[in-house]
């Protein structure tokens, strides 16, 4: 479904039937009285499990553009939102709706990696400048990288790779990894091993659980009998809550410290309660990050939406910032694609997460923070890896 801001679809339809339809028939000079709008297509989930992510990304992105005067390179902006439903099966169709149907100048989104694969595939062929604002699938800025595809979020690899050395620093030399048996799980655990094994760590066992199974008891018993120094886990959403709670209830946390990708405790911390205390994670952001930019961002987002800013809002905000920066450099001329892409590649954003620039494969170069859950908060206890870039393996751009 396509909706326009600020007009809802229903209002749009009813007015379009009358005045709107008539206006579109007016001769061109009347319409061109003000500069034509820059069309920003947004493909994000607004219904279903990931709806809150979709809303946070969208609202923060628009907030960034409005903070810069609500214009892109001096031209007003039209946001065309399509609900992705986080459904890969509908992704190609939805992408085409925006690129071919709406003829958007920029394409942003999605949350789900499966949707991202379909979206990026089409964007590569059509050449539409695309900014991936969440999905962390490695391929987006590896095998499938393209001059017109940027990412303002993270690659799965980035959120796990720095944890291994941190574990070794604490003398945790033998680990068991546990995740769901699906693409993101494999990427996360693979990245963890890439950091852990060269640093001298030994992965005793890799436990893979059928997705989205959440009965962990048998595996917890297995971990207890293996007696590793540490456990590294990746789960998200309901699974993350249940795993952290079960791990604690099984008494394992006392003897075998739990580590994970930041998504283990981000957005789920409240539901996990005391069970999450002491869990160590790595991520490119933490709400507790004590910088002026982050503080100002969190206040502005709260004031605007009434909601608490999270990592997804940050990614949306930086998507907006990147658009503002690039369009300013070409003074609003969307036909100057080459210059826009060059400006994006060279961008250095003052993000709530810290300074952020882009790698050759156009994935963020960013600090990865080591966070510990303390009193129900992901507290930054250090930088696990300064200015980490995804290796971009398989990307031919240089």
């Amino acid at each position, binding site marked *: 479904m396509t909706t326009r801001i600020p007009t809802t679809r229903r209002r749009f339809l009813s007015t379009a039937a009358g005045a709107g339809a008539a206006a579109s028939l007016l001769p061109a000079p009347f319409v061109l009285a003000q500069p034509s709008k820059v069309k920003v297509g947004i493909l994000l989930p607004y219904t279903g499990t990931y709806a809150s992510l979709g809303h946070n990304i969208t609202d923060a992105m628009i907030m960034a553009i409005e903070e810069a005067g609500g214009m892109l390179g001096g031209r007003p902006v039209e946001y065309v939102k399509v609900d992705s439903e986080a459904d890969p099966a509908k992704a190609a169709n939805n992408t085409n709706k925006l690129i071919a149907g709406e003829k958007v100048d920029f394409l942003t989104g999605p949350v789900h990696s499966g949707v991202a694969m379909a979206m990026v595939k089409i964007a590569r062929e059509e050449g539409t400048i695309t900014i991936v604002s969440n999905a962390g699938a490695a391929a987006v800025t590896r095998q499938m990288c393209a001059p017109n595809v940027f990412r303002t979020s993270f690659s799965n690899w980035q959120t796990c790779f720095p944890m291994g050395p941190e574990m070794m620093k604490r003398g945790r030399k033998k680990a068991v990894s546990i995740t769901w048996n699906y693409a993101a799980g494999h990427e996360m655990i693979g990245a963890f091993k890439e950091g852990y094994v060269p640093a001298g760590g030994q992965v005793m066992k890799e436990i893979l659980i059928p997705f989205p199974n959440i009965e962990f008891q048998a595996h917890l018993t297995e971990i207890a009998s293996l007696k590793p120094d540490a456990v590294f886990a990746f789960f998200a959403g309901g699974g993350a809550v249940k795993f952290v709670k079960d791990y604690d*209830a099984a008494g394992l946390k006392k003897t075998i410290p739990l580590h994970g990708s930041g998504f283990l405790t981000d957005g789920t911390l409240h539901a996990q309660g005391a069970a999450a205390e002491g869990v160590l994670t790595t991520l490119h952001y933490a709400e507790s990050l004590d910088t002026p930019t982050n503080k100002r961002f969190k206040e502005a987002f709260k004031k605007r939406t009434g909601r608490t800013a999270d990592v997804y809002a940050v990614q949306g905000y930086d998507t907006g910032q990147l658009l503002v920066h690039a369009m300013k450099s070409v003074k609003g001329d969307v036909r100057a694609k080459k210059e826009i892409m060059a400006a994006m590649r060279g961008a250095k954003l003052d993000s709530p997460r810290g300074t952020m620039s882009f790698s050759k494969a156009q994935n963020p170069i960013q600090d990865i923070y080591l966070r510990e859950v303390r009193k129900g908060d992901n507290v930054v206890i250090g930088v696990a890896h300064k200015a980490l870039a995804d290796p971009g393996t398989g990307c031919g751009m240089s």
Partner: protein
Amino acid sequence: MDVSTFLVQSLNSVQYGFLLFLVASGLTLIFGILGVINLAHGSFFMIGAYLAHWLALKTGNLFVAIALGLPLSFLLGLAVERLAIGFLYARDHLYQVLLTYGLILIFNELQRILWGNDVHGVPTPAALSASIPLTEAQSYPVYRFFISLACLGVAAAMYLVINRTKLGMLIRAGASNREMVELLGFGVKRLYAVVFALGAALTAFAGMLSAPVNSVYPGMGEHVLIISFVVVVIGGLGSIQGAFVGAMLIGFVDTFGKVFLPEAASLSVYAFMAAVLLWRPQGLFGVRPA
């Protein structure tokens, strides 16, 4: 695998089996006895979990929340039966599938409107939040034992009601020959409504009770739907004992499948079901149709 690990894994199996029976018990009533294919089974489970979350937040006590949530879910069951399911007893199963699938969508949307899409946790009641050490590394949460106990209670109560009371006799009679029971002067319509509502309440009860060990999140109902059908089908339609034995067997197959055949963990339960059905198409305790 050493002996202590084996024992703990067996405990995991039994405990998971109990949980499965609890989750599938409502379906045993609705599918096993009324013969209605109720895809909205998972939705009742989800509603139970959300009620537990919401009421526990308001009242500060999970048990008070369950006491309030049970009559609410019973009433919801009655309403669903009156407004929807009641029209379809005589119809083909396909109609029931379509209708109850529609109910899933409605309940999911209601959940989104009422409670939003965040993941919630329900704290374990303080009195039961301790853990019992089992091995040097692992301990077992008391609350899980409590769930097992509750499940035994539910199983015993269901068995007694269905097999030893007049209501149970009517239910069984209605299940095998509805018209005859009606001709004998009993209100089958009302009886069915009560059984359906009981099934819904039982399912919601399972959702409420397991809320502290599960988490409460959108789409959680879909997880339990399929495994519940597996339990009931393996056990045999209409058999409480069957569902109980089926749940236990699946508990063991799933747990030890994960340990010994991790590559096939997602398959083990279904392979087991296929094997049982090849051997006894009517399920372990089911009656072969004449």
